[in-house]
């Protein structure tokens, strides 16, 4: 991994069209400003991973389980 040191207000550029700037530093938090083409998909990593994990789990659903769940949903709560 490439590691760069930047000061407040300094940036890095990636290719010709992505720019990431250190906007604010407060304690352990860094606020980044990102300029990128609108089709670039940018996510907080933990959000990306959680969605990916949910997608992976859902993609393995057994149809019998869905059918059983559908039947259970039609049953009045006792």
């Amino acid at each position: 991994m490439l590691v760069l040191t930047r000061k407040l207000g300094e940036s890095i550029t990636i290719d010709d069209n992505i720019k990431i700037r250190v906007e604010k530093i407060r304690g352990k938090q860094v606020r980044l400003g990102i300029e990128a083409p609108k089709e670039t998909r940018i996510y907080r990593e933990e959000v990306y991973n959680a969605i990916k994990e949910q997608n992976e789990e859902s993609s393995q659903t057994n149809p019998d389980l869905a059918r059983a769940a559908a039947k259970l949903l039609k049953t009045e709560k006792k």
Partner: protein
Amino acid sequence: MRVKTSRFGEVELSQDDILEFSEGLLGFGQLRRFIVLDDPNDEIFAWLQSCENPDIAFPILEPELFAGSYAIEIPRSDLEALHLDAQKDGRLFNIITIPKDPTQMTANMKAPILINVKKRLARQCVLQDNSLQIREPIFIKLQQRVVQNPETRFKPDAVAIGAVPVKRAPEAEM
């Protein structure tokens, strides 16, 4: 044409039934072509089936079934990618996770699927709103809705959405 699926056997469909996810789904970026399947053995869930990997299929639901107040704003860039003028022109679905205990089922509210039904374009849109849960428990709300409306059809109209019926599996009869 025919598409092989591990859950529903071979499915007969036309080219127009295929939805193109130009960027795939998160974690499945290489899979671009999906179809919505209608399982006659199941009255609630529709399936988003990959045309390229028979093993990959997601149960999906329309949010109005369990989240009446799902007021979200789809980013402009997502609408543009789908060639939609407005969010209301698309059909919205949430990916559902059904664990062994179905009462613990959840919906991904943070990253819904938006479909341009006419143009057959679709996309998983990641929303910025941090109050939206990736695993929102939905069983109780969904059950209330289903039990209170016994005559309602809950699955999307197959013709309206371009869903492909799968054959009724006799062994799955319940």
